[in-house]
């Protein structure tokens, strides 16, 4: 992982300290709605550096081998949340996953995230995901007059929901959830995380409404605590814990 460790590997490399390169096979699930009725797999061989990410490998394929390959990416640095995909069976951001970390000795499988309708290749329709997100009202709700200055909050109050402010809406968590895969009616971890961000915000007054929304038949009670979401989150949000906290808030509001 360190620079010194990598230096020892390539015996034939010319410059000392040069980043080693290797050839890797990417097995990508392709689907063209205009010609295909079913998705199929296609393999591509690319030569990548040890410092290259899966996104770089996908770029290489798209730019040099097959321009018809479609995938989303915007910032390419793990902030915009556009390029969540299922790499070797796990939801990850292609821009935050180094090729060398996903066992490049074997073909690396790349699929669209599961549970959302595939539009083309690695692009899925995110609308059902955002529908659930909108339903939890992810915005500040207040009553009374607006203060002339900013709304003051103690550091402690801010820390209460710090973890859930990190969400980038990449859908890696929601589409790793087996309950969501079934029929897509479950609100999903991402919507609950973003509700959590406001429910536990001391400046917000819409917590009760959001809790009622998540008390739905398809709300927090469908969570089976399988922790797939926590494992999938590229931002390291403790998603399952956030869901459990919303459950507890619902219970304590009743008893």
């Amino acid at each position: 992982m360190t620079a010194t460790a990598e230096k020892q590997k390539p015996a034939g490399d010319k410059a000392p300290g040069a980043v080693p390169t290797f050839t890797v096979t990417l097995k990508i699930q392709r689907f063209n709605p205009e010609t295909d009725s079913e998705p199929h797999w296609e393999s591509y061989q690319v030569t990548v550096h040890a410092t290259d990410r899966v996104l770089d490998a996908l770029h290489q394929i798209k730019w040099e081998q097959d321009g018809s390959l479609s995938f989303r990416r915007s910032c390419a640095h793990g902030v915009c949340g556009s390029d969540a995909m299922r790499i070797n069976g796990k939801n990850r951001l292609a821009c935050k996953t180094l090729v060398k970390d996903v066992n490049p000795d074997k073909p690396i499988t790349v699929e669209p995230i599961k549970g959302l309708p595939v539009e083309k290749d690695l692009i899925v329709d995110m609308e059902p995901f955002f529908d659930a997100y909108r339903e939890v009202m992810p915005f500040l709700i207040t009553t009374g007059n607006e203060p002339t200055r900013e709304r003051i909050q103690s550091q402690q109050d801010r820390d209460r929901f710090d973890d859930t402010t990190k969400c980038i809406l990449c859908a890696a968590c929601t589409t790793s959830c087996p309950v969501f895969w079934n029929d897509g009616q479950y609100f999903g971890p991402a919507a609950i995380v973003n509700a959590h961000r406001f429910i536990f915000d001391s400046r917000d007054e819409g917590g009760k409404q959001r809790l009622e929304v998540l008390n739905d038949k398809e709300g927090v009670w469908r969570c089976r605590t399988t922790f797939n979401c926590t494992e999938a989150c590229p931002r390291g949000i403790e998603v399952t814990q956030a869901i459990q906290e919303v459950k507890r808030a619902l219970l304590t509001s009743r008893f």
Partner: protein
Amino acid sequence: MTATSSETPRVDAVPVKHSRYRRVGASRGNFELWSWVFMRGSGILLLVLVFGHLFVNLMLGEGIHAVDFAFVGQKWSSPFWQVWDLLMLWLAELHGVNGVRTVINDYTEKNSTRWVLKALLFTSALLVMVLGTLVIFTFDPCIDPSSTLSVCSR
């Protein structure tokens, strides 16, 4: 760009509005909350009830060798064990049914399948609970007139 651009494109992608991915409307109510609470509560109670049951039946006195018709008859002549077994029956059945209901919700994809499986589940549960309750309260250890059981000689 693609070779297919010259022919009429066959668009198979169904817009979300019409696909099974569409989110259907909300359904408010506290049922799922209470079912969640019930699972926790009944689970804890069942731990006591089931292990108490196992201890009394299998370990106390002669243990498993004492269990026969007379043993059951003796037990069910006491209201304490009647209530114990009734509680165990109802809680275990409802706990199990609620668990299977969850499994059905999680694994069936169509509402029709869901409905059929749940109908079967609830019918079986009703049958078990009604029959079980009936047996616990109407059990007659002296149904055999020539019974030599101690409860029957009184």
